[in-house]
Each structure stands twice: as structure tokens, then as C-alpha cells.
């Protein structure tokens, strides 16, 4: 059940160009948080920003009730977040949305494909998969070398391939290029990233079963306003904030 939480920032780190890692302390138990879910963050103290900003949960330390998020500063909201200090508070709704349904899947080998700010939720997912004994191969795509983050963290959990669009680090090109070059074997794939990347992946891997996490500008973040929809293969729309952000790749139609 979604709650409104008053989180305390306990760690604040710049981990790549314009990219920040925050650890926030939750008063309530974090045990209900699943990989793929997001927190919906209020920006500022007054009403000048009327919309919350959705940020994926990158990791959870259940023992210490710490939630980790990673974000890139792209506008006013993320800039505000990046300026908050250790000891400061974050007002967030959580946990929001659906998760990668790993409890219902049997597999030996999972392929994770993340692009840019789509990388964070895959880390919590990777950790949970490894805990379940699943071996994990990860392909990470970034724009350029200075944007790369969490390569080592993923390496600790399995094979990792990094691609940069401009070739300044790792493989040159897109994550799909890496996929075709490496041809890893896997049972299910799990992906998160910009829509063009997801479109490429779901097209190239359409014979495989996979789960993708989508992004859309959100209003309420809880399923009430119909702002964040994606066309469904059965007609009609699905709400990304509530029925997603994680969908079976075959149930939604990417633009």
C-alpha cells in the first residue's frame, strides 16, 4: 500500500556527470518495496511545483531501512533534489507502481538491459535475482564515458557489458549492438531506459519473453488522473504509474 513518507537524506554522492546517488532513511519498514517500483517525490516546500517527480528505487537496505535512488539532473525538479543536503528531508509517496515479477518466474539466467537513467532499477533487481540463484548478465548503455555509473556494482553480480553512444567507453553504439555482438543466452530479459531503446530491444527480442519499465510524464502517480497512459495490445490504455511502470513487453504498444 502506498504511503506518504518523510525520508531523511543520510548519504549524498555525485557518481557521474550530473548524476547523483542519494540514500534516504525510511521510518517505516522497507520490506514491501520490490524491484521496478518508484518513489514519487515532492519538489520544494511550497506550491510552486505542483507535480511530484517519479524516481526509481535503485536499491534497498532493509536492515537499516535505507532506500537508494540515482538520478540525473535534467530540469528544475532533479536540480532541486541534487541540492538537498545530508540531514534534509524528502517528502515521497512510496512504493509506487508494479515490479519485475521475479517471484512468479522460474529461470537460470536473466539478461538485464539498462540505458541511462533506466539503469538504477535494474540494480535492485540484479541483487534480488542473484540472491535467488539466478545468474545475471547486464548490458548498460550511456551517452558518453562521463555518464557511466554502477559498472563495478553490477560486475560484482555477474557479467557486464557497457556501451556508449559515442564510443568513448566500452563498446561503441547502442545496447542492442552489444546484444547482437555478445549474443548472451538467457531465459527472460528485463529492461529499463528511454522509449526508443525499449522499442529497439522489444523488436530485436520479440521471440523472447521480457519485462520493460516505461517512463511518462506523470500527474498523480497513483492512478487517478490518466496522465501516464500507454496503449495496450488489448485495446485501451494502461496506466504506467499504477499498472506499470513494469509491463510484460508483449502487453503494451510502444510509440
Amino acid at each position, binding site marked *: 500500500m*502506498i504511503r*506518504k513518507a518523510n525520508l531523511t537524506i543520510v548519504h549524498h554522492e555525485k557518481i557521474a556527470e550530473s548524476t547523483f546517488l542519494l540514500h534516504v532513511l525510511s521510518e517505516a519498514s522497507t520490506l514491501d518495496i520490490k524491484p521496478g517500483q518508484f518513489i514519487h517525490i515532492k519538489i520544494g516546500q511550497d*506550491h510552486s511545483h*505542483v507535480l511530484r517527480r517519479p524516481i526509481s528505487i535503485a536499491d534497498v537496505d532493509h536492515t537499516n531501512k535505507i532506500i537508494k535512488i540515482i538520478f540525473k539532473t535534467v530540469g528544475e525538479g532533479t536540480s532541486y533534489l541534487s541540492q538537498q543536503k545530508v540531514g534534509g528531508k524528502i517528502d515521497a509517496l512510496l512504493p509506487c507502481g508494479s515490479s519485475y515479477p521475479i517471484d512468479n518466474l522460474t529461470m537460470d539466467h536473466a539478461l538485464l538491459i539498462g540505458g541511462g537513467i533506466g539503469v538504477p532499477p535494474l540494480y535492485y533487481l540484479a541483487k534480488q535475482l542473484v540472491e535467488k540463484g539466478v545468474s545475471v548478465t547486464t548490458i548498460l548503455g550511456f551517452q558518453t564515458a562521463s555518464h557511466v555509473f554502477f559498472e563495478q556494482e553490477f560486475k560484482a553480480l555477474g557479467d557486464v557489458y557497457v556501451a556508449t553512444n559515442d564510443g568513448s567507453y566500452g563498446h561503441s553504439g547502442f545496447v542492442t549492438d552489444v546484444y547482437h555482438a555478445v549474443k548472451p543466452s538467457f531465459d527472460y530479459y528485463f529492461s529499463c531506459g528511454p522509449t526508443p531503446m525499449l522499442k529497439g530491444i522489444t523488436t530485436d527480442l520479440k521471440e523472447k519473453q521480457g519485462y520493460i519499465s516505461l517512463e*511518462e*510524464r506523470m500527474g498523480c502517480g497513483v492512478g487517478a488522473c490518466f496522465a501516464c*497512459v*500507454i496503449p495496450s495490445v488489448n485495446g485501451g490504455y494502461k496506466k504506467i504509474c499504477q499498472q506499470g511502470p513494469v509491463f510484460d513487453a508483449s502487453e503494451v504498444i510502444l510509440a
Partner: protein
Amino acid sequence: MNLSVSLPGLKLKNPIMPASGCFGFGAEYSKFYDLNQLGAIIIKAATAEARYGNPTPRVAETSAGMLNAIGLQNPGVDNIIANELPALSVYDTPIIANVAGSTIEEYEMVAKAFKNTEQVEALELNISCPNVKEGGVQFGTDPYLASEVTKRVKAQSDVPLYVKLSPNVTNIVEIANAVAKAGADGLSMINTLTGMRIDLQTRKPIIANKIGGLSGPAIKPVAIRMIYQVKQQIDIPIIGMGGITCAEDVLEFLLAGANAVAVGTANFENPFICPEIIAELPEVLKKYGFSSVEDAIGKGHINE
């Protein structure tokens, strides 16, 4: 303190209700708090058939406000009655149904469909949705069309009819007068102002529909002005809305002439906003010397 208010067909425990389109059909917020606390609930717009709405992006933030162009997405009135309303029947809170359409006939059909439900205690006639028949003129901006649709829908319904006015007009009093004369039991105002944001990167309007409706604190002064002007000229109950975020804002709307208020955008910022405002209201009324909600209504017009 007595927070109750009486409007045509509605006895409200308090004057606070979520605004149409900002609260779905209540299900999501029922997980945050007991909906019995609310004065009433205005549900999302209903059309005759299911509508899928506009392409995304459908929302964008602006300074102290937001734009939306949802496009009346809804499962259709029959579906709403069959699948959405039953969950609300457990609450002792009046439901106001927001009636939308592209043609007068569609408005009539929707109003008629709601007639067969016990639950809906009033209709809010949404005459400010874009893309309608009659050469693109909007029902909410032409006094004649506004009056016509009011009359025809009123004839189809046995519950009070609140006509929701668009602020995108030269003369709000003229439209208010037209719908009042056509038999509206009350007014609901204001709907969103129309606005646009352009993305500097893509060089295109952010909202896929290009133009969207502006809501939130940014529009509050426009809402207060319009309610005040209408109240000066016409004696008709008003459900006020536009940028309300706290109990002080509610009092400002009451002073301007609103009999009750709806809270829209603020639900997104804080899902608990409605019960929080209800809890703060008695103290705020007391602080400014009012003994009840009814005592404050229209008091901004006394010292003229």
C-alpha cells in the same frame, strides 16, 4: 464548529470535495484515507461511450501550476455505473457526476444514464471540453449554446444540475446568466485556463495535444475574480475551484461567494490534502472571526 453547507440537492458535512478528473472514481484515494470525511466527491468526466483520450505527454508543469490534456479518457457512462460507482456506495458521501460530450445528444444520453442510479446526487455539466460539433465553437464559450445544453440536460435529469464554466471567455457573467436562466441549479467554476509550453529541445509543444488546461495556484486569482463578479450579479449557488491548496484558500473562495469548493491539482502534490484542509478549516474560520462555513459565504461582498 459547524462546517456543513446546503446546496440545491446536496447536504454536505463540509464544503470540501475533490474536483473532477483529479480523483479518478475515488478508488485510489480510498487507500489513503476514509472517503467518508469528504463533503462530496466529483468523479471523472463520463461520456456516452468509452474514450481513450489524447496521446501522451498529457501533463506538464508550469510555474505554480500545470497543464493537462487528458482528453476525457473514461470507460463510458454505463461502465462507470456498473464498475466504478458500486465501490463508492459504502460511503455516506454524495457523489456528483461530471457529464461530458461532443454533442447535445451525447450530454443528454450521459445525464439520462445517471438517472437510473441512486448514488449520483447531482450532475456537474462540463461544457468546456474541446473538439465539439457546431463548427468548433465550444459549448462553454457561447452563451446560446451553453443555455441550450443546460436546458436539454436539465430536462433529462431529476437531480440538481451544476454547470461548470470555462474561464476562457471575455464575459463570464454573460455565460453564467445564460445558464442560470436556462435552469442551472448551481455553477461550478472555474475549469482550466488554456495554455501551452514549448519544449526547447524538441521545439514542439510539450503536451501532445499542443494546448492544455492550466490549473493550480497560478489560476487562483482568476477564479476568485470570476466567482466574485458572478456573485455580484447573480444569486446562484457556486462550487468554487482553481488553485486551492489550504484552508485559507477555501475561506478566500467562500468570501468571494462560493458555497462549497473543489480541490483538484493539489491532490497530486499531496494525496491527503482534502482531509487535511477539512481538519484545518475550523481553526482558520475561527481565526478570521467566522462561526461556521455558512457564516463566511459571500462575506467579501459586505464592505462595499
